């Protein structure tokens, strides 16, 4: 299978804007690793485009940014893209990373049953703290970075030829390192965010084949 990546980047509220810009800024880097990227940005992050693209150009890696729930991941304006019991079979033989709430609890395991090779995501709500005055330059937001840089690390590690398991561990360690760094600064005014970093670390999970590679 070709080293194509399908990425969905809805952008209709502050949460999806942050996910889209943080994970969009890395696309040129991925191209340098020799990957072909199908970027479904804003309105293009809809179910029809996702299904059509996966049928036309077999993608080894599907990277979903957006909202979600235990049984689904959504796209622009919260349109359901993939739903357990409906169309998870389109993820057959793919490595899937969903940075969205909860989908790794049910959609993840069901996707593996339906033939997906690996599914990485969050089994509970993905929470992050940000600086709202940075909305127009969200990638410079140092608070959000604590929560979002692990995602870039995961994707880059995978793109560089590491296994899913190695890449996942690298990303999980990044969340942990950020947590430990904050823990060592007890006088920080934003130490409240510790529990949210810990929460994301705890619920960041990987299903399926940890030896899979792009």
């Amino acid at each position, binding site marked *: 299978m070709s080293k194509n990546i399908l990425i969905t980047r809805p952008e209709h509220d*502050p*949460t999806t804007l942050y996910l889209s810009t943080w994970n969009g800024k890395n696309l040129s880097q991925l191209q340098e690793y020799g990957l072909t990227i199908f970027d479904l940005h804003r309105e293009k992050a809809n179910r029809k485009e996702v299904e059509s693209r996966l049928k036309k150009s077999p993608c080894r890696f599907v990277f979903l940014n957006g909202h979600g729930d235990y049984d689904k991941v959504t796209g622009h304006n919260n349109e359901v893209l993939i739903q357990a019991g409906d169309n998870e079979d389109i993820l057959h033989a793919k490595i899937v990373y969903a940075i969205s709430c909860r989908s790794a609890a049910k959609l993840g395991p069901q996707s593996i049953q339906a033939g997906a090779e690996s599914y990485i995501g969050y089994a509970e709500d993905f*929470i992050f*703290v940000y600086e709202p005055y940075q909305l127009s330059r969200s990638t410079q937001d140092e608070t959000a970075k604590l929560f979002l840089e692990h995602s870039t690390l995961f994707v880059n590690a995978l793109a560089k030829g590491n296994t899913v398991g190695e890449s996942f561990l690298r990303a999980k360690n990044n969340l942990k390192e950020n947590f430990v760094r904050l823990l060592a600064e007890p006088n920080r*005014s934003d*130490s*409240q965010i510790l529990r949210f970093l810990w929460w994301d670390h705890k619920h960041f999970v990987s299903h399926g084949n940890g030896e899979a590679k792009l």
Partner: protein
Amino acid sequence: MNSELSEEIKELVLLRLETMPSDRKISIGSYGEFTKEELIERVKKGDEVGKKLIAIEMEFLQAMKEGVLV
């Protein structure tokens, strides 16, 4: 969880939120984005978002007690 403990945790969550800088927002997935003042209201009301914050605090405290944080 008994109601006395539940109230204590709620108070703790409120105290923690009070110390949060006002220039931050928290994205809680599909629930949306909240200022600290909005979160304090949610915890006081005891709605889904408030209950979620209390659940996070409970699990965090439990993990600290068990020494599994780091």
